[in-house]
């Protein structure tokens, strides 16, 4: 889409013109124009994979565009590194925070700061951080180590780090993805205060409500291209949704298959997290055949530990897990798999696939123990490859190149491959953690369709997701986890986003 370069408005803070950036032949940004004014909060809206992070990273000096121009304060600049961007007053809070976990807040702030002397001095830093913190609602203790802070606090440190460096153009990449609704509200307050002081803010999100709530203007990206830009006052959610997705959003009401017998029962399970504290406490969940139970919650409220306890990767301290009438509390992972447990892990590259192995081997990782894939100790390469070819076709896995490593596939195809491996084992129970996180729209729909078909075929599915839309689309019943405890358990027709948001923030509601 050829957008004409917008007129230079008064008070232009930054302008990107014709930015194109390809990764291995995939266009992450294609001829994107973007302009930013002083004193505004400018939302950058788009689905996962639309190219938002790429565009921001170009402005922040992290990525070098294949072509296109960057103008700051009216001057054309060439940003060779994030450091140079900082020197121009442009800084970014990345989706994955860039803080050294083992350092204190003060050390993180000092790092790379040009004005502190050779020796690390403490007092003036603490004073400045205190002032900035009070002014913008960003209070944190300078002496705390970053790993001890909550995600929300870490985000405050990230923003402080930029302010301390004197940054005047702040880019925040999906800052609310990890926050509770309440924390998001606080962040919006901070952003507004920063904009009122004349700074320019780019706020990346894929949530329409947030755009309407906080932004002055919005630019929409789709498939790497800019598809629209307007003041928020002239925008409405339906228009933005259509721009973002490229078609009307329809909520798929799936016809209910009546749930059958309980297949998976989690009874009063308590387990410790990696730091030795109780990560889940007295969790009660029951999943029936043909039922999808969605577990909602902000990341880090025990979801990972819950999945690990069910799949046998973590031992519970108390409680019982029953699958198909068998007590599997103490069973090994292999025993659970044999009883019919499938698992789609949250971190698909680290625990879902052996990235260095070819796809055929990854697809065989569960079935290799039986014929036809192996006879005794010997693997049949031919059978593995035949099976891989069948599954590729059945699950529409694309981009496979023979024996090349699986990690070269795109996220959506890797996820299809994991589902292919798990579903081809005909599980009775499937635990799916963040099944569509980070995928593009088409892949998300395909994966969700697979899950629905699987449930209709009789599988009991425990789906853990931070994506409320996904929870509401797929679940027959919704469970909200907060600080490791089940806050509430709602049938689909009683769950709505507002109620779930309250519960996810730890606020119980007496009357729904």
């Amino acid at each position: 889409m050829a957008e004409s370069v917008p007129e230079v408005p008064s008070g232009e803070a930054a302008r990107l013109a014709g930015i194109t950036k390809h990764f291995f032949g995939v266009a992450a940004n294609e001829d994107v124009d973007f302009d930013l004014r002083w004193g505004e909060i400018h939302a950058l809206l788009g689905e996962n994979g639309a190219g938002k992070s790429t565009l921001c990273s170009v402005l922040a000096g992290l990525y070098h565009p294949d072509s296109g121009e960057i103008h700051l304060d009216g001057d054309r600049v060439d940003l060779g590194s994030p450091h140079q961007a900082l020197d121009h007053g442009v800084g970014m809070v990345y989706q994955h925070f860039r803080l050294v976990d083992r350092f204190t807040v003060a050390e993180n702030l000092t790092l790379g700061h040009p004005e502190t002397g050779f020796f690390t001095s403490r007092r003036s830093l603490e004073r400045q951080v205190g002032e900035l913190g009070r002014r913008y609602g960003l209070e944190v203790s300078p002496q705390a180590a970053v790993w001890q802070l909550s995600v929300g606090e870490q985000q405050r440190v990230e923003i402080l780090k930029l302010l301390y460096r004197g940054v005047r153009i702040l880019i925040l990449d999906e800052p609310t993805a990890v926050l509770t609704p309440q924390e998001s509200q606080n962040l919006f307050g901070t952003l507004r205060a920063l904009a009122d002081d004349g700074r320019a803010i780019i706020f990346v999100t894929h949530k329409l409500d947030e755009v309407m709530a906080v932004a002055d203007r919005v630019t929409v990206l789709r498939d790497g291209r800019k598809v629209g830009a307007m003041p928020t006052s002239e925008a409405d959610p339906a228009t933005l949704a259509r721009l973002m997705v490229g078609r009307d959003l329809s909520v798929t009401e799936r016809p209910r298959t009546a749930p059958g017998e309980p297949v998976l029962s989690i009874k009063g399970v308590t387990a410790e997290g990696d730091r030795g504290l109780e990560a889940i406490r007295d969790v009660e969940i029951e999943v029936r055949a043909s039922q999808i139970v969605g577990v909602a919650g902000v990341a880090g409220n025990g979801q990972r530990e819950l999945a690990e306890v069910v799949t046998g990767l973590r031992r519970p301290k108390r409680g019982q897990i029953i699958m198909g009438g068998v007590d599997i509390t103490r069973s090994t992972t292999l025993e659970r798999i044999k009883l019919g447990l499938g698992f789609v892990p949250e971190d698909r590259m680290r625990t879902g696939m052996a990235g260095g192995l070819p796809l055929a081997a990854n697809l065989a990782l569960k079935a290799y123990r039986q014929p036809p894939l192996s006879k005794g100790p010997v693997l049949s390469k031919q059978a593995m490859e035949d099976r891989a070819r069948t599954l590729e076709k059945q699950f529409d896995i694309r981009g496979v190149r023979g024996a090349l490593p699986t990690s070269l596939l795109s996220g959506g195809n890797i996820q299809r491959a994991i589902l292919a491996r798990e579903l081809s084992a005909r599980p009775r129970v499937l635990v799916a953690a963040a099944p569509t996180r980070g995928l593009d729209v088409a892949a998300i729909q395909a994966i969700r369709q697979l899950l629905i078909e699987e449930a209709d075929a009789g599988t009991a599915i425990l789906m853990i997701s931070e994506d409320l839309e996904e929870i509401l689309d797929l679940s027959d019943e919704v469970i909200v986890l907060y600080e490791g405890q089940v806050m509430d358990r709602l049938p689909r027709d009683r769950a709505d986003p507002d109620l779930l948001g309250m519960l996810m923030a730890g606020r119980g509601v007496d009357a729904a």
Partner: protein
Amino acid sequence: MNESVLLLSLASAVVIGTPILLAGLGEMMTEHSGVMNLGIEGMLLGGGVVGFWMSTQQASLPLAMAVGALVGALFALIHAYLAVTLRVNQIVSGLALVVTGTGFASFVGSLNDSSLIYARPVSKFEPVFGEAFRDLPVVGPLVLGHDWVVYMSWVLVAVAAFWLFRTRAGLALRAVGEDPATADTVGIPVGLTRYVYTMIGGAGAGMGGTYLMAGIFSTYQHGISAGLGWIAFALVIFAGWRPWRALVAAYVFGALRNLGFSLQILGVDIPPDVLNVFPFFLTIVALMVISARPAAARRFSAPSALTVPYARESR
């Protein structure tokens, strides 16, 4: 055990511990930048053999040490290029360096009908303090009886500790080793930092090797290092990546190397190979003790990005 035997073996533990300390301290700096260099043994032999050759040609031992350090650093440069620029697996590249350095030392040692093997240093490492000091009870032999390399190693320990934990440069270095992506976004040159500290590591190993050959043994033999480089590698882990702890640990390891001689004097016969295993055994015990306590594990564990290559646009 007779008191003077104990004192003497402690004093020589300090001497034997010194090349371990020099090489280990260097490796520690390298690892704080996120680069693991398994090639210490190779750099120690390669740098050491050239340093030793220098010491047989002219009288200046500081010059010989400097040349040994330089050659060690050049060997490390190979590792830096492979591991940082080409992002080759650091274990593979480090092991390749062991083979390269060892082979290089054998080659140099065999030149001219192995004349290097019969050569001796022109001058010796003399004690720094006069006899009056050295004859003082206990502190004489233990503290005041050494040559300048031992005192230099103490200064280096202090400098390293100060540098790492009290200066901005040290903070930047540790940031590169903990989280290179973060370091990059705040303007710390990740690649350059890794190159520099990898070469500093090589310099430490080269000095250690030179001191071993020109100082402790006053001779070169094939395989003279006998796994000292690997002990230096274990030292870094045993010391929890802290310089002052490395000082103590180096002398513990040195004492273990000595124990064989002492025990033989006392008539106990333990094969030296068994004693050589002890540093590694101790390191494993230390790891077990540390990992049992989460707070300690967090403080004394490896830099988070150790062996992880960094490229800005990859993810």
